[in-house]
């Protein structure tokens, strides 16, 4: 009696697997691939020759003085898009507080005495593609100096790249670092 019940429930489970684990995701994949191929495949960004540079949705590592920098990252060795991760340090962690202080000290030369908080704290994903508009403005003079560009020109570029809240309400104002740096590169050309 119990064995029969178990076998029947097992069979039900298998059919459900075919429906929910195979048919459902394949249906969504099919529709997504046909209707929104770009977004369904990771919103990839390519250069002029079709090589993949990254994804508009993912941050990547920038260390040169001539590029705007993203947030500190704990994804793998930093911005590893196959190993997302965060510091997960608690608010009273000595490690956290000293790391933040060191980052602030290192950034201070860029644009002022007080560094915006998002530039010295690690993101949740380690792949945050954005910084706050304040953090972008904070880096303007360093980037302009490194590239030999007038500061006003770089500042205008940043101002034009600030994304407002979605529909004017949702989320926070932000700047996509990869998009900003690509615009910066084409400015020089």
């Amino acid at each position, binding site marked *: 009696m*119990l064995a029969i019940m*178990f076998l*029947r429930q*097992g069979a*039900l*489970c298998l*059919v*459900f*697997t075919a429906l929910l*684990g195979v048919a*459902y*995701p394949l249906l*969504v*994949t099919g529709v*997504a*691939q046909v209707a*929104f191929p770009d*977004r*369904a*495949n*990771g919103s*990839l960004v390519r250069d002029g020759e079709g090589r*993949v540079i*990254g*994804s*508009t*949705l*993912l*941050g990547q*590592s920038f*260390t*040169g003085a001539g590029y705007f920098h993203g*947030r500190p990252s704990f*994804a793998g060795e930093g911005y590893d*898009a*196959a190993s*997302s991760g965060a*510091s997960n*340090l*608690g*608010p*009273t962690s000595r490690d*956290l*507080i000293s790391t*933040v202080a060191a980052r*602030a000290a290192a950034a201070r030369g860029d644009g002022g005495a*007080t560094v*915006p*908080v998002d530039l010295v704290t*690690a*993101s*949740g*994903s380690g792949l945050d593609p*954005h910084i*706050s508009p304040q953090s972008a403005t904070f880096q303007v003079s360093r980037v302009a100096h490194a590239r030999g560009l007038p500061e006003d020109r770089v500042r205008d570029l940043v101002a034009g790249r600030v994304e407002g809240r979605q529909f004017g*309400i949702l*989320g*926070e104002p*932000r700047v996509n670092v990869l998009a900003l740096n690509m615009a910066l*590169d084409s400015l020089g050309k």
Partner: protein
Amino acid sequence: MPMTDSLQLVLFLAMIAASAPLLGRYMARVYEGKGTLLTPILAPVERTLYRLAGAKVDKDQHWTTYALTLLAFNLAGFLLLFAILRLQHLLPFNPQDLAPMGTRLAFNTAVSFVTNTNWQAYSGEVALSDFSQMVGLTTQNFLSAGTGMAVAVAVIQGFSRRSARGIGNFTVDLVRGVLYILLPLSIVLALLLVVQGVPQTLSPYVHATTLEGGRQLIAQGPAASQIAIKQLGTNGGGFFGVNSAHPFENPTPLSNLLEMVSILLIPAAFCFLFGRMVGDTRQGRAIFAAMTLLFLAAFAVVYAAEHAGNPLIPALSVDQTAGNMEGKEVRFGVLNSSLWAVATTAASNGSVNAMHDSFTPMGGMALLLLIQLGEIVFGGVGAGFYGMLLFVILSVFIAGLMVGRTPEYLGKKIEAREVKLGLLALLSMPLGILILGALSTVPAAGLASVQDAGPHGLTELLYAYSSATGNNGSAFAGFGADTPYQNTMLGLAMLLGRYAVILPMLAVAGSLVGKKAHAETAGTFPTHGPLFVGLLVGVILIIGGLTFFPTLALGPLAEQFAMVGGHVY
């Protein structure tokens, strides 16, 4: 609170308040077997599934048979998922050639997904093939949610039916919930998420050469279909390691809003389904009000704490007007991170869009307490509602004691048997959190998982056992969960938190369903007004508070005082 933040909060609450009653009405029709718009398409599939499982729509089960069928179904699901995880290297759709999961981690993961916990001791993009994610996990996301919803419907039948013997049919309740409620909502949400940028592909990971000339390997997969059901079914298990903080899981503020609403949608709808099924919509609204009150109180604490930032970071060198941003994403900021955190711990969802481990002590404590109260502030799909009914039973019992009358709820006498069974179910939380949690502080194998020093370390451990027992699944993720000791013990905590509540609650339903309903008299304590809502909230806070306050004092409260006093560990 800035205007922009209040607007987003109000919009979120309005979306829940507007959609939950409509969905609740639809769900009541589904579970009562009445026709809906989708019946012509889905009825043939529904009938096939019944035939396969040998279920008949009009054949009600005694609560013991209902429970046995449920256990058999969940056991089959566990074995299937365990096998998939152990054999993924031999199965198709493994473009990255990932190795099989170890035995204990596979046990932990299979238990986790079958119990609707979705605690993840692994990182998705590193450990799981597309086959395991889709065929294994996505399936259980649906089925564990459907199981919880079925139990809630059975418990509601215990109140709504009169002098009956059976509490419904498990297979029928399960199939209806999955086919008519979870599946259509998931298809819609999955496609909306793709529009916002969530990937849905079976291609291998993509190699990129970054602007600075570095290499970046971009992990993706069939993410949207899994994320839709993980939110709607209060599962919470992410496709990627960092869950909905990952820009591919949650790319925009709109995807964030849709995912947040999806967390609370079905749990909130259950209040209104309840009102319909017992024939008194005021009863459902009262429970919705109690849940909303507790939700808003928790949100106020978390938001205030996160907005204030971390006083240990010197104000002269860092501008913290944006709040505590460690572990948070710029596109969400403090408001959306706090709101999500409260929603995901109020409901037993457990997906995160910011790292709870890096929340301020008071913010983290409110999240922890929401889980410890028993996941009843909206709670898991179904699970939250039958958990809340347990507190309702206790509240009318206490009210009955105060006025010296036999307590009644919806015309049914609440007697010793129901109260005893209810208390039995209630004990699973302290047993899993306090006893198993305390046990983990003794052996070196248990302590090794703690990452942070000082009181925060204790909070990490408490949070892990609370999350497992409450079937939440979120974590203070610095906690090293993937060890043989924790995989086993947390697996047991999840089983305890799930079945040690389901079985007594089904017994309560079985006991209530046979009772006659008494007509309301002048002496009946009304359970739909503000007085009852206040009593219910009070009972929840007193029971949860008294049980867990000592541990909260040693963990987050001690850390708060240390932080204000300028101590680091």
